[in-house]
């Protein structure tokens, strides 16, 4: 558990420094696993947050909507320099890939119909499915702790993927049941 009053030992970095550090991470965190890059950059290299705080902020990032990487940028930026720190952190994080993916759209409109580039893209799509499954297993190994958790996860997945339940309904209904299941109790379950 982190203490909100425990601030990093070093003085808070400037807004420009926050933007730069997140820009570098946003440009170099190749190939997914951006949380790993964040941990190295923020905890080890910059010492802006300590280990316990990082884990705490990560659990908030995963619970709230929004991507883990951008939520982490906002939470860390806010701790360092308030709302403006949060804004510059997320801008730096997103700017490199925003430019790249916009450029990719234009490149796609020029060469996307070429059968050779289609063959390449079909291949990387298959590889990306493997990556998504790994991300799911890693997330699952952290949050699925009791048999009931597996039931909630599988029921949610089946409702959306097999029975066509819209994501927001599945999200609200399953969360309500799952949160209630884990409701605070005075006595431990036997």
């Amino acid at each position, binding site marked *: 558990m982190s203490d*909100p009053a425990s601030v990093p030992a070093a003085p808070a970095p400037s807004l420009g420094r926050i933007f730069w550090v997140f820009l570098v991470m*946003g440009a170099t965190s*190749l*190939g*997914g*696993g*951006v949380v790993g890059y964040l941990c190295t950059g923020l905890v080890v290299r910059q010492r802006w947050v300590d280990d316990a705080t990082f884990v705490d902020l990560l659990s*908030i990032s995963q*619970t*709230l*909507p929004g991507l883990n*990487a*951008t939520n982490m940028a906002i939470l860390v930026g*806010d701790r360092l320099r308030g709302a403006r720190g*949060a804004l510059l952190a*997320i801008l730096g*994080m997103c700017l*490199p*890939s*925003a430019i*790249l*993916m*916009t450029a990719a*759209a234009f490149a*796609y409109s020029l060469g996307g119909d070429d059968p050779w580039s289609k*063959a*390449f*893209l*079909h291949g*990387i*799509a*298959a*590889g*990306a*499915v*493997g*990556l998504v*499954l*790994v991300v*799911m297993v890693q*997330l*699952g190994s*952290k*949050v699925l*702790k009791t048999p*009931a*958790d597996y039931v909630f996860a599988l029921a*949610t*997945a089946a*409702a*959306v*993927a097999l029975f066509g339940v819209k*994501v*927001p309904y599945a*999200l609200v209904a*399953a969360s309500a049941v799952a*949160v*209630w299941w*884990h*409701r605070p109790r005075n006595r431990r379950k036997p």
Partner: protein
Amino acid sequence: MKQLDDIAGVFAYLSLLTVGGGMAAFPELKTLTVDTYHWVTFPELLHFYSLGQLAPGPNMMMVASIGAVVAGIPGALVALVAFFLPTGLLTLAVGRLWTHLAAWRWRPSVEMGMGSVSVGLVLAGAFIMGRGALFNWLYVAMALVVFFLLLRGRINPAYPIVACGVIGILAHWLDIARTA
């Protein structure tokens, strides 16, 4: 103008579903951009999503690509702001509140409950993605090999994914996998 409004509405809505990661919103992303608005085809969506996995930074920056396909640079900008502003403000607000809730009795309940549901949403997204991306045994095999490689080792995911792209080209050349 109508298109920019649609882009803003779609991506602001989708952003609120990304609990546990971008994949959680994938089923609705597919429904809205492919079936409802016809901005991209399903293969195009899969291609942009996969390219987005190769790019550095957050893994859903392909929303900029879809915005750009629909309405050029303004479309990309609107998609990005719509996708990040609502959840960003929410995170900022709740992040400040959450640290004050360290001792709140329901906090672990919310984290544990939402955690298992988010895994389920990501699984559903992966399933729907797989239905579109895995045409035959070759593509299933590639996905499985990438899965086990990344699960066991600490290699950069970009390498095996690009290798899959090369195998896709080889398969096309050898005419193993007629796909479209």
